[in-house]
């Protein structure tokens, strides 16, 4: 009698589990580098088991943890569609956007390591202080500087637009800069993202301040610190050829003009 009751209870538990678990789903372990400044002296690794679909993204897994398991888990995300650049993080040792990294593209049979991007001050869990990153971005004057009043459209040939097309794709997620080994040890280095955004204006023929930007980047902490490690090109979630852009800026500095 009692045995039957237990079996029935187990059966219903299994059914509810089956209802929650969509076909094809499986449990994956995420090991997240946690740091809560009020509680932790040092960052610590914490693991979470999450039921996911292979087509889920790391961001979905993080949401599940935050909403269902541990509300204190802190991370940034805004659009969740790979365009705002909020959720760059180090996933299995590589900088990626959590919203563009599918579980199936990693190895779900192994634990997935998630930590904040390196080189910028850690504030909480997966959040870093982006201010030093934006400071160097501001220093390269990332805005069009053209003389004359803008009474009509500033036209440009297709070829002239093509010249800097690649570097217009930057979303300022900091995946490149925080993957750069030079930036890790020398926080004064402008970093790939700032150089990419300088490239976007240096090679824009409507802009008239290329020389100013070339002077700014022809600095001790400018383009010459680049060691062509290609970490930045590999990290860029937008597929920008970052190292190539930096090399083009170097050539422009040597020529003295774009």
């Amino acid at each position: 009698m009692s045995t039957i009751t237990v079996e029935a209870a187990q059966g219903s538990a299994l059914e509810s589990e089956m209802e929650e678990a969509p076909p094809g789903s499986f449990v994956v372990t995420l090991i997240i580098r946690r740091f809560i400044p009020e509680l932790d002296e040092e960052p610590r690794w914490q693991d979470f088991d999450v039921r996911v679909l292979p087509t889920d993204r790391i961001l979905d897994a993080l949401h599940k943890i935050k909403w269902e398991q541990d509300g204190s888990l802190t991370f940034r995300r805004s659009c969740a569609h790979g365009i705002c650049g909020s959720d760059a993080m180090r996933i299995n040792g590589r900088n990626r956007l959590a919203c563009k990294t599918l579980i199936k593209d990693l190895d779900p049979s192994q634990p997935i390591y998630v930590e904040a991007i390196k080189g910028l001050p850690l504030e909480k869990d997966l959040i870093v202080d982006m201010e030093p990153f934006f400071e160097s971005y501001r220093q390269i004057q990332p805005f069009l500087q053209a003389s004359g009043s803008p009474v009509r459209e500033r036209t440009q040939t297709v070829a002239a637009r093509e010249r800097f097309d690649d570097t217009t794709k930057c979303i300022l997620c900091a995946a490149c800069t925080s993957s750069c080994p030079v930036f890790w040890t020398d926080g004064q280095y402008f970093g790939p993202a700032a150089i990419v955004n300088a490239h976007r204006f240096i090679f824009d023929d409507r802009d008239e301040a290329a020389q100013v930007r070339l002077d700014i980047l022809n600095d001790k902490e400018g383009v010459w610190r680049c060691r062509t490690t290609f970490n930045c090109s590999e990290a860029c979630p937008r597929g920008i050829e970052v190292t190539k852009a930096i090399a083009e800026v170097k050539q422009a500095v040597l020529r003295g003009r774009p």
Partner: protein
Amino acid sequence: MTATLDAPRSKPAPRRTNWEKWGWIYMRASGVVLVVLIFGHLFVNLYAGEGVKAIDFGFVAGKWASPFWQWYDAALLWLALIHGSNGMRTIVNDYSTGPRLNTWLKRAIFVSTVLLILLGTLVIFTFDPCPTGTAADLLPSFCAAR
């Protein structure tokens, strides 16, 4: 926090000579020349003629008797040592975080490089296999005094 720009369109203050830029150019230029010089060096010393078996005191003395090889080896010495020490400087900049350690390591690299270049250059251009006034048994077999 508001974004502030201090005089955004002003030109940066003129700087002294930009060593980072010249360092970068030097590494590339010397690298290309070194490839040629080093392979020439290896070919002549290890392969041409009798090959590696020919290398001895007399072989080096014979090479440095010619101004061509003196200047060849001097160029190799200067280019390679400066190239190498500039690379070491870069590594120090990358890995030593403390400013004092950084300065001292770079000073050590600079001093050792200058010392090696001066010593090497001195040897290349003042090398005399048969110095006068030396005991005959210390001289190599090809010297006239022996």
